[in-house]
Every structure is written in structure tokens, then in C-alpha cells.
């Protein structure tokens, strides 16, 4: 299982498509930095069927005033949780 990180919003960059295309059926995706915009209910559709495998970083949501605006299906983790995700994954790939 691979952890993928994404730091761009789907409204600005199409790199999210590359990340999704490279993901295996058990892989996880963590939205960080400007990528947390993708967790908004109006943008979450870009990530298709990642139920239970789509995460967003709490600190980056909070810095942007988006912590209370996240779609319900996104799993919110803090920096400690980010480290845990990297422990659980065989490797981590960064999409930017």
C-alpha cells in the first residue's frame, strides 16, 4: 500500500488526475497544503470513489479557515496522523 500526497487544488492544477491514475486499489491519498481545498464539498467529486482512503491534513485546513467546511467523507488527520499514515504505507509518493 502506497501513501500519495497531493499539494495542489483540483481547481488550479490537473496533477490530481495523475495521482489518481497511479493509485492502486488499496492506496491512500492525503491532501496537504493548497491541496486541502479539494476537501470542500463542492470539489470532492474530483476524487471519485476513494471512500475511506481520502485524507486531509488538519493543520492545513485550519490555517485556511476550512476546518469546518470539509466534506463528511474526508478523514481529517493531524501531523501525528500524517506520520502514522507513512508508517502504515510501504512508501510515500509526492504529487505536486
Amino acid at each position, binding site marked *: 500500500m502506497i501513501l500519495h500526497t497531493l*499539494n495542489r487544488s483540483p481547481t488550479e492544477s490537473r496533477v490530481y488526475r495523475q495521482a489518481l491514475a497511479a493509485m492502486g486499489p488499496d492506496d491512500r491519498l492525503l491532501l496537504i*497544503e493548497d491541496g486541502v481545498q479539494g476537501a470542500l464539498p463542492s470539489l470532492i467529486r474530483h476524487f471519485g470513489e476513494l471512500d475511506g482512503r481520502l485524507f486531509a491534513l488538519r493543520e492545513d485546513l485550519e490555517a485556511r479557515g476550512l476546518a469546518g467546511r470539509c466534506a463528511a467523507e474526508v478523514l481529517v488527520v493531524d501531523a501525528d496522523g500524517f506520520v502514522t499514515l507513512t508508517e502504515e504505507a510501504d512508501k510515500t509518493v509526492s504529487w505536486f
Partner: protein
Amino acid sequence: MRYALLVQGGPYSRQAAHSALRFGEAAIARGHRLETVFFYHDGVYNAARLAAPPQDEPHLVDRFRALHDNHGTQLKVCIAAGLRRGLLDEREAARHGKQGHSLEAPFELTGLGQLIDAGLSHDRLITFSP
């Protein structure tokens, strides 16, 4: 576990270095060993010894230095990426006939082979890009 971080974004312009520091500090807090931070692409700018950010902003160079001083983290800067961008230690400056230097310990100029080596020999390599 033994962790390495790859930082590819410059300070202030992009969040990458901030994210890497936050992650590295969280990994250490969870009991991991942060052995290496490797700087590549614009990440090499994080080693600029003359950086003088405003007093009310985080001083990234000092934060990286603290990782080295307190946790033994090695701060490795790709030499080819650094030279192109004006990051030279005293030895490289002398070799290129330049006066002065822009990078100093605990940051060290090193070959890209060390990144491949870190990627294969550490338990985890986490990349932070611009």
C-alpha cells in the same frame, strides 16, 4: 523507524520547507529517528546562511539547524543543484575562485548519490515539493 526527508521547495515562496519541518518534528515526537534531510531543486535555498526573515516570521534555517543540533539529523544539500543557484561552502567558493561563501555547517554539500542511498537504506523517504 529511520526516516529521510527530501525537500524540493525554497523557503517562504512555498510551504514545502514548513511542511517538512512540521512532519520531521512530529516524526521525532512519535519516537522515530530523523536521520537525513536532503535538499534538492529549489530546496537548496533553505541552506542560505544569510537569510534574514522578519522577526515575526519563523526562521527556517534556525529550525533546520535545531534538528541537527538536537537530534543529529544530517542536512545534505545537492552540490550540483546548489552550485547553479549560488550556494557554495568555503571550499567550493575557493575552487571556483569566488570570495566568500553562502552555505555553512551543519548544512553540507554532497552528491546526489546520497539521496538515492537515503531512499534505499532508510525505512521511509518522504518528499515535500513546491
